């Protein structure tokens, strides 16, 4: 304490230590402030199938419109920085395989409005490894992960909701898509 430089050093290191302890207390407080999954309002539903086609690689692809409506306000206490919310379409296939594909996601930050109500299209296409999507029943699940300011990200929560059954046949291709497919088939013949 004999010079101002030494006093400045001591004060700033003490402040740093106290900041560390305060951050630890903030992280511990978020254990008591997190809510269960039931309190998140979720009223989403299936809107319309856009098309169900077979790709050139013989994989199935489904594109659709979804009616998304959720409210994440109970999730945001003082230690949540942002919430990553995503929709998974899951189904069982004939070969004892359970597939889940993320088709839409969004980041909701602490200083943005926390409710969302709109019709969305596939952000990421639903592509199956194979041709198992005809007549398949899809289960759409809304899941989220919260990022804290201080603390651990301990994983997702989810609330299951709506299902939808895909049609038994592929959608009809438009004239442009059919001509493009024919062109591809004739340009690359087998060796």
């Amino acid at each position, binding site marked *: 304490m004999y010079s101002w430089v030494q*006093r400045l050093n001591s004060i700033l290191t003490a402040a740093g230590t106290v900041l560390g302890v305060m951050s630890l207390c*903030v992280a511990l407080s978020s254990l008591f402030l997190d809510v269960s999954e039931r309190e998140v309002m979720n009223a989403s539903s299936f809107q319309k199938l856009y098309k169900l086609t077979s790709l050139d690689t013989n994989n199935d692809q489904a594109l659709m419109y979804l009616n998304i409506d959720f409210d994440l306000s109970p999730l945001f206490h003082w230690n949540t920085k942002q919430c990553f919310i995503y929709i998974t379409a899951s189904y069982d296939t004939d070969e004892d395989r359970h597939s889940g594909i993320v088709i839409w996601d969004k980041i909701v930050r602490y200083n943005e409005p926390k409710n969302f109500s709109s019709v969305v299209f596939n952000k990421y296409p639903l592509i199956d490894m194979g041709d198992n999507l005809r007549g398949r029943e899809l289960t759409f699940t809304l899941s989220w992960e919260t990022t804290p300011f201080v603390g651990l990200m301990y994983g997702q929560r989810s609330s299951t909701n709506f299902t939808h059954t895909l049609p038994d046949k592929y959608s009809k291709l438009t004239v442009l898509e059919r001509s493009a497919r024919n062109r591809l088939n004739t340009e690359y013949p087998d060796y």
Partner: protein
Amino acid sequence: TSTSTRRGKKKKMDYQGQELAETIYQYGIIISGIIAFLYGLLISKDILSMFYIFGAVLSIILIICVPNWPIFNRHPLKWLERPLQPITFEISKSKFS
């Protein structure tokens, strides 16, 4: 005159002043940490306000404790006078030289 150049210690803080400054900042930082945490947790529900309050009280404590205020120098140390003549030493002959 030759006494105008002081090569010894300048007038800063005395020992009682240093002890006072140390107790001020130690208890002040801990109390400000507790108050900032409780304010952010209960009243404002905002983590940024916790850091702002802690930073504000920390700035006040820095202004109080870091500079050499005369309050901390109420019992100044008395140093010896600087001698006018240079001090010379005589190296005495020892038995082994």
